[in-house]
């Protein structure tokens, strides 16, 4: 028993949010049909390639079937309407009103299939002055305040390196779709869900919105964060690392003195000020940043692992700035099954990031590799009654591929 066994998903979206969402629905047991333009999802052209196949596309589309359709053509849209009649869930990211203009919007499709759950993902949603603006990952990170917490105050901006807007909007959409599916059982009714990337990111900003409105004093993590320095850790012989002394005052004093002796900062302890306050001047925040030039030279002759061992030996905490290669090589990642392999028809054996949720009695399983473009076009058309002749006619006039 997988949670979404028997649920049919029709995904008309491209890029990250929609495909990430429908990939997670596939991992949960749903049957996902991915409708791509004749020349493919735009991400097929992006990023690094494995035997000509985009690694970015493959990271977002496992376990789906692909049909290539020309939606500029009425005959292509008719195919979408037929597929939507049998679908439980439809995902699209055409932008506000676009699907309605094409005759494949919620109003039209729900007439034939009132149980349909229709999820529209867009940068800004359908309501409000920005509804028609174009924006991608970076613009939304900036507008939703995420760049305010990176880089030096007043310096060059920095973005979050992960595609946070893309992936988490996929997650939000998944949450909306599952809630609507859960609700459909008793109500018997489908519905439309609007998932706005910008609004999704504002929800995830809630700690900051509360902290900055009515604080007792201008202080504390969530208040001072935006005005702090770039937190790039302490340089060592190899990887940078972050560390701090124990929280308990007595342990911190002892730990600090021991740490100083072990890294060769004994001289600091001769100064009563640093002996007494130094433990609070390492780690994260402004004081630590200002004190860093004093500490850092002592660490540069040691590896991050050596310093981590010293810090943890005196009861403190630390973490190394791990690269992707570092973390994926950890036995912990293998233990929780977060790197898996799939056999792709063109790219061969590929690696993919695993499923984060572990349902103990009904474990989830990936349904297969990402599809090649139009790999299942014929098979899918047959399910809605097209015969071989009709299919080759559609191919001939480039309505399908």
């Amino acid at each position, binding site marked *: 028993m997988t949670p979404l066994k028997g649920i049919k998903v029709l995904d008309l979206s491209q890029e990250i949010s929609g495909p990430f969402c429908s990939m997670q629905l596939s991992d949960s047991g749903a049957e996902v049909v991915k409708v791509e333009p004749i020349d493919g999802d735009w991400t097929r052209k992006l990023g690094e390639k494995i035997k000509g196949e985009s690694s970015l596309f493959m990271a977002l589309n496992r376990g789906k079937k692909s049909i290539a359709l020309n939606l500029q053509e009425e005959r292509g849209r008719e195919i979408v309407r037929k597929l939507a009649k049998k679908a439980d869930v439809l995902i699209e990211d055409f932008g506000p009103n676009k699907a309605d203009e094409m005759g494949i919007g919620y109003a039209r499709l729900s007439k034939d299939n009132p149980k349909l759950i229709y999820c529209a993902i867009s940068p800004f949603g359908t309501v409000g002055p920005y509804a028609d603006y*174009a924006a991608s990952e970076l613009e939304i990170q900036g507008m939703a305040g995420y760049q305010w917490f990176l880089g030096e105050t007043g310096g060059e901006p920095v973005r979050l390196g992960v595609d946070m807007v893309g992936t988490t909007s996929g997650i939000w959409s998944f949450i909306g779709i599952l809630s609507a599916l859960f609700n459909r059982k008793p109500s018997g009714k489908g519905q439309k869900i609007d998932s706005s990337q910008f609004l999704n990111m504002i929800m995830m900003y809630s700690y900051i919105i509360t902290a900055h409105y009515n604080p007792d004093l201008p202080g504390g993590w969530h208040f001072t964060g935006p005005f702090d320095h770039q937190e790039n850790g302490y340089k060592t012989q190899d990887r940078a690392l972050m560390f701090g002394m124990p929280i308990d005052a007595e342990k911190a004093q002892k730990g600090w003195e021991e740490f100083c002796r072990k890294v060769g900062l004994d001289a600091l302890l001769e100064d009563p000020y640093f002996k007494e306050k130094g433990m609070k001047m390492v780690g994260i925040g402004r004081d630590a940043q200002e004190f860093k030039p004093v500490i850092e030279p002592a660490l540069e002759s040691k590896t991050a692992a050596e310093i981590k061992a010293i810090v943890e030996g005196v009861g403190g905490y630390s973490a190394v700035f791990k690269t992707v290669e570092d973390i994926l090589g950890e036995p912990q990642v293998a233990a929780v099954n977060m790197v898996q392999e799939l056999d792709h028809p063109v790219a061969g054996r590929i690696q993919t990031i695993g499923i984060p949720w572990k349902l103990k009695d009904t474990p989830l399983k990936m349904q297969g590799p990402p599809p090649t473009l139009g790999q299942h076009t014929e098979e899918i058309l047959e399910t809605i009654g097209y015969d071989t002749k009709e299919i080759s006619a559609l191919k001939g006039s480039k309505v399908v591929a």
Partner: protein
Amino acid sequence: MLNGVRVIDAGGWGVGPIACCLLGALGADVIRFEPPKLDGLYHAGTMQGGAGTAYITAHFNERNIVLDLKKEEDREIALKIVATADVIIENHPPGTMTKLKFDYENVSKANPNIIYCASSSYGATGPLANSPSNDPLMQLASGFASLNGPPGSQGEMFRYVASVDFTTSLNIVQAVLLALMTRQATGRGQKVEMSQLEATLALETTRISEYFATGESPVPMGTANPNIVPSQSFRTYDNKYINVSIYREEYWSMLCKALALADLEKDPRFATNADRVKHREELIPILEEKFAVEPARWWIILLRRNGVPVGPINTVDEIYNDPHIRENKMIVKCNTMWGPALFSNFPLKFSDPPQPIKITGPVKPDKNRKEILAEISGKAGKSKGKR
């Protein structure tokens, strides 16, 4: 959406509680088990009216009862409440719930069809299963932080927005919904496990795909994008920055027209995104020079009128005053016992029921003791739950 589902917030700090609040926003009845000394987040970080603002943020849409699970008497009350519930969520350090005799084995005796969601730092198995962590440390340990920062750096920690924590909360909501769907079909509950590490790796999937293709770790790129050119911040005449991304081919000619750079549009070095990625170093200085001659506001108005993806870099004040956020009622004010507080509203819009999902501010610890005790003793009727 989740009317009739009862959720127990037996978590601490941000990860578990935020997940519970979001389930509450979706219509679930959430009861928080508050420890007698109150949660750690109550006493930490930015303060308002004597409480941590993060605690205020992390406990909207909840009812509250103070229970000391170390005391047998309170544990029994807690088990009686759990017997009326559908879901329980905890995110304490590994072993905590076992020591309290409140792990799945114990709780499922009181309620065999409970969905018990345990969220940890590194996952339920493996050499690091028992290691505690937190948002900033997990950013570093998961590789997340190695992707932020100026080019050539070893990475940068994202300051205090708790994106790893929040992402984990969202993953808990996903896992709970999956378990609820399963239970709707089978009638059976189960234990569900997840972790910050697993949630964060899934979040990194697009960048990790670079490693799977090349065998080399992806690196921080400032504001630039490995796959799309241009997509980065540009400095403007007034020393501000704007973000511009040509994330679809059709935007390139729109940008060139808006900037009145006809030669650029015809230049074969920049014809397609693939060409522009190849000739990034030649193209970016041309655009930098152009954007430097007018103020940020100028470019934002001009590019938006031309349909080009563009945006400012906002601070929290600008977000609060943003007309789009206002019109969507995305920030709501609630009166709490710690004074008026602002909350982010639930972002998804459902057509049925069509009304916006409301955030109600958190309540005073132990405020709902009487009514909850009455409910479990049958005086106020049983939970409508068990969907």
